[in-house]
């Protein structure tokens, strides 16, 4: 077939009936306070890494988590410097550092095809 130079864009549709909720369920089990998040953005404003990069913050990770985009989380989660500022400013009392730790463990288990 002739290559006409048209590009086919990747499908950016997220099907909430069929997304990968393994990691979300894992976190819900071990640190349920993550569900308290109201996306207020205080964590984003104060994030040390977010200040030095253009992408990373824990609020965004929550969105990836709900959508089931575990690969996106894995790409960015190692940037967290664990400073703890997000936890101090959170108005809802989410235990953010524990969430990051558990996410990292969950991702490791998924990569090794272990039971979550």
């Amino acid at each position: 077939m002739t290559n006409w130079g048209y590009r086919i864009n990747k499908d950016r549709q997220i099907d909430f009936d069929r997304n990968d909720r393994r990691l979300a369920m894992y976190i819900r089990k071990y640190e349920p306070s993550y569900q308290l998040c109201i996306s207020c953005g205080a964590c984003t404003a104060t994030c040390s890494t977010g200040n030095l990069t253009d992408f990373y913050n824990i609020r965004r990770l929550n969105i990836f988590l709900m959508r089931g985009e575990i690969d996106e989380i894995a790409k960015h989660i190692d940037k967290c410097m664990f400073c703890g500022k997000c936890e101090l400013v959170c108005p809802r009392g989410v235990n953010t550092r524990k969430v990051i730790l558990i996410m990292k463990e969950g991702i490791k288990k998924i990569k090794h095809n272990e039971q979550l």
Partner: protein
Amino acid sequence: MNNFDIFVLPFAIGLYTLLIVFIAKAYDWIKHLPVEDRRKIGKGILSRKIFGVFKEIFLESLLHRKIFKVNPLLGYMHMSLAFGWFLLIIMGTIESKIYGRDLLNAPWDPIFFKYFMHDTNKFHSAFFNFTMDFLLLFVLSGVGLAYAKRIRAKIFGLKKTTKQILFDKLAIFSLWLIFPLRLLAESLTAGIHHNGGFLTGGLGTLLARFIPAGHFEYTAWWLYSLSVGTFFFVLPWSRYMHIPTEILLIAFRRFGLKTKTGFTNFSQIEVYSCPRCGICIDKCQMAGDLGNEKPAAVYFLNSIRAQKVKTNLSFDCMICGRCEQFCPVGISLNEHRMIQRNKLISNSYNFHFLKNGSQPKAKVAYYAGCMTHLTPSIKKAMIYILDESRTDYVFLDKDGGACCGRPMMLSGNFGGAEKLIEANKESILKSEAEILVTSCPICYKIFRKQYNLPIRVMHHSEFILALVNSGSLSINKSALRAVYHDPCELGRGSKVYEEPRELLNHAVDLVSSPYEMENALCCGGSLGNIMLNYEEKDRINQSVWKEMMTNHPEVLVTACPLCKKTFNKNAPLPVKDIAEIVVESMKVRHLTTTSKITVTEAAL
């Protein structure tokens, strides 16, 4: 003198088993130590340090000086058992050598002496009979106190005692019977053969009047031997393994071995040296304020020894250092927590976004740290002080920067922490500063311990004190009643207790609180504990506030931005950082020269 009867066998089997097991374990431990550690041991044995080792063994393993400091009655109990038993063995050995004809005696000769030796009409008999009975009474007083402690720990100033595992229960059961059985056996023999002292002789005569002592004498010695034998046999698998292991620990520690970021056999020796005394449970604020004693240091060490360390337990610790401070054996508990965390988590990190650009140069580098950025009042106060004192400084992380790395270390990710250290060190060295000043004790601790900087590192309280002492800053004293809270990372963590107080004495009327210096309480805001939720941290904080209010201060002064933020949540009083207090009491001095005055090492 060949004293032998078949009843000595349980004792002998127990003793020889213990010796063989311990020597084998010690050999295995030492053989697999890292090479530098073994070299240190070799050098240490042949040096004067060996005197320090014997001194510490005498003062701590026998006299239990550190436990006396926690509670005198508790110290007496442990001392009477340890030192009393030690003296019984020494005196007993001398006694059996004097009565016997050979220089070498079988190990059971001193233990069962009164059974074999009935002729006590020698000139030295009165002395030995008295001394041995006195020492037995001494030990029995400790045994009695030990029974009491199980029933009412409160008399010893402890809120709780340790929950015992099976082998410990077996060991304690046999240990608690040893000396009462010795008393019984010796007394029965004394009642028949009149070879006792004031205690055994008196009791023996009494017993002989009411019961046929002859029938029971042999059985009593059998029971005594069985109890000692059982105790020795079970010892290597129980808490009492600390008795021989502690000696190795004291010696190796004095020779320079340490637990740092890896679990070596020295760390294993530390784990086996835990006597499960329970003082750590008493000092832990989570056990006291939250009623949660499961993650206390003693149970944590138990889990390391059993090789069943659980994530929840190793992360549920504030790393405040209170347990480590009061541990009578001096186990480096904080390091052990972090090492186990390191083993349990995935040590991944990705800090490629840390770029190091050019760095302006100055004599003093000020590093605010993540937490100070979250408490801008401290930042403003520090900048004011630095400007007013005409210090030549550069604000390293003015627009935010990389975290110092200690929170990462506390979470167990040593690899990530190393990377952060590398990046920050580069920018510190590029500034060519002579002094690094930080307003956060968490950063201060890691700068001092892990960064290996060739320049001087100061906490802002030390630095401001130096400015005041050198005349670059002048402050007025007010009548404000202030109480100072020692932050965990600055106080117990870095041993900086005096400088903040000295500085505050220039500015306010400092009052004391019941928990100060090494005994200070943790504010609860710890970055070391990943498991606590905000409500539990609040509870701890509220009980700390109660203690701080004891002498009716008007303001609480902290030296740590995290403490300040934590205390502010439940504050009945204003909470101020040291820098803010200094700013409030400063008079602005306008200097005649226009050049910047640098704070050099000489002035300090």
